């Protein structure tokens, strides 16, 4: 069996602006796609991870004796076996590969077992004896900074203040609120998995489901104490990511076992372990105060935002910056006082998830906009339009928004859509409670809500954000054939299709092949921040331009359009590799938050129509329509898919998705009790896609993946408020919040 999913590299038809079918689509629907969990190697062994049962404890001793005696066990490893530096992390290297003397969250890896069978590994793992001295966990994000320090530098990960305008501005109409966002999980369907194969050069080849090959490579190499070139990563079949694969999970663990035993080592988490094995969305507590004049025009916004980063830093610093800099939403506000704190606690570590800090703020500022509308007796859409930012607006960071920002237009688009009829016939599938037969119309009240959001696209704050692409052109069997190679992770979003479309358009050749994504080429950057079509797409486009330049030289000044490529190229091969960067950003001032921190902004608006069974507290989202500007839809079908998926994930946060914790322990690590929307929860969507090109971006594209996740949640909650008249300041909204029981 091949170790990379071949179908991802097979050809589709069509250039940019068309919607070729994904090469892996049918296989996935039929259940035949090879995910990383399907990896297999002759003679491989299986790894298992012993995890801490305690959110906070001191490890007094670890006894491996009995585990090592289990027949079939090849190795049992602890932190003492970590060959390189026992620390990793995306922004701060603060997380041990295997715990040393302290465990800081429930599920923290303590020891590894490698055995001939996954069951043997599990059995042996249960025979490892760890003595813990249980400590009192820090679990409250609002007081964590003054609580027991969990790391040498204390419990503050980052504080970002944003100060703009008059800090003492006063207004005629003032609304305040405290809001809470629960801990959402990415809930990708393919759990963490990979296969590490020891290599003859003393290094290792890792086949892995990840979002970012190169950042994994660097961290794995450092933990293994190996030079980069001896740690080679190849992307395997990835079953979704949504941010949850940006941090390491089993990468180093599998490599350690492989190097220690000399055997290919496979690790696959099951669903329960997956809940402990990756970071989640930061839960948040947000205090807001909005001041406006009688016309609804915002005079000032003040906010204090707390984000619970859990036990390790992960990407908390960047999430904090997003929450703060995007903290007032897509509105013009002259006077802004925002503070956002990301803190350490003994709750599960939190990091990247679709929307990345913008989701939490948006729930609060959009709830505030509705409250303001109510205080003013204004229509909720009107109050937003009065304040809507537009091209040329100045962000609270002082950054000028220099491409399309059609906030008012997006709001009008969703507002002007026809309303769904009130259903008359009783079809249980259309009712709150669905087929569970809880109502035939009794207690059902309809509500409508609106929201709009803003998201930064690509990496921010001066990060050197780039991608590398190689494009080769040659004649094969008398036909021009192009090949493209990057290390940018295809996680299910369709980048492989986009890359082919770009090459086809740029080079005018039909035959385009994509090489497997691996670290034999330079960094492709993360598949996150809605950035791959923009940045890797930009790199592929630039590599094609470099190929065209070579062709032009060969053609000696003749117009390429009329040239026969077969004759021109002959046996020559043109092979160009390009590193492509979007325009640079700047760090923000640590005291005022001022600076051109972001590359581009994306906007989406939603209108939600809900039916609420007010007696039982059950919700049916009847309609969830969206308008979004995508700059240019390179693949219109894929754009719709992103908007539908993002909106569904926002719906999940609005009404059901939450990792519930108690004293730092996860209470629902399974899909039995961590519920994600089904087809009966997510309504069909009517979507308006605007294509207002960003002159700074390749083809004018604007990142698509995250904005719909941001506005969907507050729109739905606004609709539930409209139906119930309740304040509903926490998501997910539970039946108890509606019934008051």
């Amino acid at each position, binding site marked *: 069996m091949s170790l990379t999913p071949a179908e991802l590299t097979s050809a589709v038809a069509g250039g940019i602006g068309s919607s070729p079918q994904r090469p892996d689509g049918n296989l996935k629907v039929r259940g035949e796609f090879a995910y990383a969990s399907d990896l297999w190697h002759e003679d491989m062994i299986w790894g298992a991870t012993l995890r801490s049962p305690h959110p906070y404890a001191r490890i007094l001793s670890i006894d491996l004796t009995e585990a090592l005696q289990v027949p079939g066990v090849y190795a049992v490893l602890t932190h003492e076996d970590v060959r390189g530096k026992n620390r990793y992390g995306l922004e701060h290297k603060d997380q041990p590969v295997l715990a040393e003397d302290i465990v800081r969250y429930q599920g923290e890896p303590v020891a590894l077992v490698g055995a001939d069978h996954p*069951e043997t590994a*599990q059995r042996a793992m249960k025979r490892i004896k760890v003595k813990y001295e249980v400590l009192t966990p820090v679990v409250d994000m609002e007081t964590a900074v003054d609580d027991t320090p969990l790391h040498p530098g204390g419990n503050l990960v980052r504080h970002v203040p944003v100060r703009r305008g008059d800090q003492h501005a006063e207004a005629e109409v003032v609304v305040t609120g405290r809001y809470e966002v629960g801990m959402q999980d990415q809930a990708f369907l393919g759990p963490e998995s990979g296969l590490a194969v020891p290599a003859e050069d003393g290094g290792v080849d890792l086949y892995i489901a990840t979002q970012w090959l190169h950042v994994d490579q660097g961290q794995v190499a450092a933990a293994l104490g190996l030079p980069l070139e001896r740690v080679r990563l190849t992307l395997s079949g990835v079953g979704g990511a949504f941010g949850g694969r940006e941090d390491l999970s089993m990468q180093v663990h599998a490599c350690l076992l492989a190097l220690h035993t000399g055997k290919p080592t496979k690790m696959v988490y*099951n669903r*329960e372990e997956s809940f402990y094995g990756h970071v989640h969305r930061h839960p948040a507590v947000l205090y807001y105060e909005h001041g406006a004049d009688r016309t609804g025009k915002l005079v000032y916004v003040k906010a204090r935002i707390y984000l619970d980063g859990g036990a390790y830093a992960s990407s908390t610093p960047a999430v904090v910056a997003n929450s703060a800099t995007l903290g007032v939403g897509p509105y013009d506000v002259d006077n802004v006082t925002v503070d956002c704190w990301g803190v350490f606690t003994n709750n599960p570590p939190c990091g990247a998830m679709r929307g990345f800090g913008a989701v939490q703020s948006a729930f609060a500022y959009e709830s505030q906009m509705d409250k303001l509308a109510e205080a003013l007796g204004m229509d909720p859409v009107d109050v937003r339009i009065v304040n809507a930012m537009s091209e040329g607006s100045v962000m609270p960071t002082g950054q000028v928004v220099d491409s399309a920002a059609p906030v008012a237009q997006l709001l009008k688009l969703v507002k002007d859509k026809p309303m769904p009829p009130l259903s008359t016939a009783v079809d249980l*599938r259309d009712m*709150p*409670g*669905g*087929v*569970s*037969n*809880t*109502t*035939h119309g*009794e*207690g059902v009240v309809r509500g409508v809500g609106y929201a709009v959001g803003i998201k930064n696209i690509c990496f921010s704050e001066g990060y050197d954000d780039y991608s590398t692409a190689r494009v080769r052109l040659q004649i094969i069997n008398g036909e021009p054939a192009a090949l493209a190679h990057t290390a940018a992770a295809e996680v299910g979003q369709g980048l492989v299709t986009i890359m082919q479309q770009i090459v086809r358009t740029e080079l005018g050749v039909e035959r385009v092949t994509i090489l497997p994504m691996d670290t034999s080429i330079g960094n492709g950057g993360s598949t996150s921040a809605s950035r791959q079509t923009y940045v890797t797409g930009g790199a592929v486009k630039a590599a094609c331009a470099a190929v065209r330049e070579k062709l032009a030289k060969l053609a000696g000044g003749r117009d390429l359009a009329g040239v026969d490529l077969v004759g021109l190229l002959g046996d020559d091969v043109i092979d160009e590799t390009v590193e492509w960067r979007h325009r640079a950003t700047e760090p923000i001032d640590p005291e005022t938050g001022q600076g051109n921190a972001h590359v581009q902004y994306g906007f989406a608006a939603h209108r939600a129509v809900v039916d609420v069974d007010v*007696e*039982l*507290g*059950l919700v*049916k989202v009847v309609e969830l329509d969206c308008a979004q500007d995508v700059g240019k839809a390179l693949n219109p079908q894929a754009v719709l898919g992103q908007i539908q998926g993002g909106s569904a994930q926002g719906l999940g946060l609005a*009404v*059901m998705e939450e990792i*519930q914790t108690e004293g730092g322990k996860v*209470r*629902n690590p399974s899909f*039995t*009790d961590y*519920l994600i*929307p*089904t*087809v*009966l*929860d997510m309504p069909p969507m009517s979507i308006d896609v605007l294509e207002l090109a960003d002159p700074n971006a390749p083809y004018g594209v604007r990142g698509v993946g995250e904005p719909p996740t941001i506005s969907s949640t507050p729109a739905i909650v606004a609709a539930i408020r409209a139906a119930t008249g309740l304040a509903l300041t926490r998501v997910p909204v*539970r*039946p*108890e919040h509606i*019934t008051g*029981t």
Partner: protein
Amino acid sequence: MDFLRPDTLAEALALKAQRPDAVPIAGGTDVMVELNFDHRRPAALLDLTRIAELRSWDSAGGNGDGGTVRIGSGVPYTRIIDELGDRLPGLAMASRTVGSPQIRNRGTVGGNLGAASPAGDTHPVLLAGDATVEAASTRGTRLIPATEFYLGVKRHALEPDELITAVHVPVTRAPQQFAKVGTRNAMVIAVCSFAVALHPARQRVGAAVGSAAPTPRRASAAEEFLSAELTSANQWESPKPLLDSVKRRFGELVAEAANPIDDVRGSAAYRKHALSVLARRTLDWAWRDYSEKVT
């Protein structure tokens, strides 16, 4: 782990007598989850899927009111919905709310009983509808009333050498209802559930709650109250719309029958509240239906 695959019931019972530790597996929708998550490693699995007797139903007990359908413990939900919906409306309704189409294709009432989860969807219906569980061993066959079957959280009245061979469910043309609350509109475990069955021939009402106590249980006080109320007002012969006060009292008594806990799925207070709402609504639907049929 031994995998025992009897072809006949007699063989299965003999095996179970020899190996009382063998865990029966029917649709496997509970058992396989436990195995996959390593929550259970029985010494032996006893596969019941080859036994034709368990995978059929018959109406030798009579098709009309007063009759009984005997459903083999291995008949999947999909078939109950498709083949028995007209005769056993409550059971079909509950079956429809179980899991997803895939789960309903595999999952069985026998398995639901074997698991005896307080949240199992068929239990309230079996209780309200006066069903009986047929259990067999090499020692013989006995009938256990549903009311005596559930002993505790995931504990039931089977002896270690017994298998569930069937459930006997009284046939009815009278209305039955089942409703469950979950925080998702499909594929959800009950936060609480409720079943009501009208028994006009005996002038009785059956009512039972699920997922709201250590076991599924009947709401006896609610049953008594409503039965008495309907009989004294001569409602069975000439039904009239139910008074709100009657529905409300019925709902209160149903909630009082529950003894729920706070857990990740819902609070105890919510469960009680929701049960009273479900009781009122389902009674209303059943009664309207009945009134239309009688008049």
